């Protein structure tokens, strides 16, 4: 028998959806996650929810981080969650949202299945620790 240790690596998709054209923050986060030893896939700008879902499913990411500054989170994020559900990927994907989210909307996003929301004040270490602690156990 082979006592294989395996080499599990946390995979993250950093996604930009919608018309929001600012991705400096997403680049910074992608790099910080990389330096934390994660495998990061960056979606590029102006993705539709379908495209984000396609990437999340094909890449089989543990973590989907959606960066939104445009204010369209209430329409875009639920679409992504539905798409994940369609492929059976909602259960074991940790979905995070980063960006400018009014307090009132946070509750709605959590109800939609978002695990955590990181606003402008959040530190990178906080985010990395959160991912390490909460990245879903895969079957």
């Amino acid at each position, binding site marked *: *028998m*082979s*006592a*294989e*240790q*395996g*080499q*599990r*690596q946390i*995979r993250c998709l950093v996604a930009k959806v919608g018309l929001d054209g600012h991705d400096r923050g997403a680049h910074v986060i*992608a*790099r910080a*996650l*990389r*330096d*934390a*030893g*994660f*495998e*990061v*896939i*960056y*979606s*590029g700008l102006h*993705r*539709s929810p*379908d*495209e984000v879902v*396609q*990437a999340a*499913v*094909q*890449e*089989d990411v543990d973590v989907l981080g959606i960066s939104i500054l445009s204010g369209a989170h209430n329409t875009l994020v639920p679409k992504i969650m539905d798409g994940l559900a369609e*492929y*059976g*990927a909602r259960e074991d994907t940790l979905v995070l949202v980063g960006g400018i989210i009014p307090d009132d909307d946070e509750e709605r996003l959590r109800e939609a299945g978002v695990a955590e929301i990181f606003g402008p004040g959040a530190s990178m270490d906080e985010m990395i620790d959160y991912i390490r602690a909460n990245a879903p156990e*895969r*079957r």
Partner: protein
Amino acid sequence: MTSGDSENPSESTDDLDPLIADLLDGRHRALARTITKIENRSPGYRDLVSQLHAHTGDADVIGITGSPGAGKSTLVDKLAATYREAGLTVGVIAIDPASPFTGGAVLGDRIRMASNVGDMDVFFRSMSARGTLGGLSTATTDAVKALDAFGKDKVIVETVGAGQNEVDIVRTADTVVVLVPPGSGDDVQMLKAGILEIADLFVVNKADLDGADRTVSELREMLQLRDGEVEAGGHHGFAETTVDVGGGTGPEGGGVGSDGAAEGADAEGVEPWDPPIVETVADRGEGIDDLIAAMDDHRAYLVESGQLEAKARTRYADEIRTLLREDARELLAEEIEARGGLDERVDAVLRRETDPYTVAEAVLEPLADCVAGRRESRE
């Protein structure tokens, strides 16, 4: 473990792993998860791969390599789109480098797959060149099997484009395409030793740039030079010689027709493949049809010459050897562990009481005895 020769893997189709059953059923999530397990070498991944094997062998596997910035991702994107227009399904594996310090990686090629977003029938998967020490090629080969078994018509493997890893792609792909950016005369010189030999096809991408014509003519010159210098050399010589090592003599390999054209892999009379040079401007989609036509030609050549089968033989022989090496290594690691590790022996070596060769022999001796004993009892 001790129950004689159990070389026949699970024959029944009923006891398929549910994940594999889902994959064969066309579930994307199952395909994605299978590749993850392969990458992570999760417990049981070998069983998964061996269950896949019976369902593989139908996909054309294409390897695409070339220096960073040559336009590989853009070309792959356009190839995939063109295949999709022709009604074919496509799987892509894109390999990106990983940090040797943290193991982290940014896998960025997906961004350039713009023509195919929203089309699940292009299954694009990013892979990091994790351990790189042999691990990459095993994981890639196994991931290709998953895409093949899933039913993809074309599987494209796009490599890092930064070194000797590229040569490994030959072991996975039927057709190897090497991208050469214009004005890279010196680079081409540099690539001579490895990349030039593995190419079945050259693509001078960004052919609209200055210097493209010169690059094409330099390449052509170099190919002619090579043909003149070493007869039957390069790639094809490589394939033929290794086949002999791997599978013994196999005249049944090419026995398609009784005369001339299809004499098989070991026939001396097979016309060697002359790698064509195709010019493309990938971001505008120019030359993609020419490239596909050239790849189809190569495919046809492989089939007619019997090389396709010869390559498969080589590939499986290599794969078996790699697995054996891995397993033997693990067996040894267990044995060393069971003997309390190497520390004491290393101390003894440092004190000049013994030497590494003697230690290695001593550790291996019981294993060697055991193997020899078994072999005798079989004979």
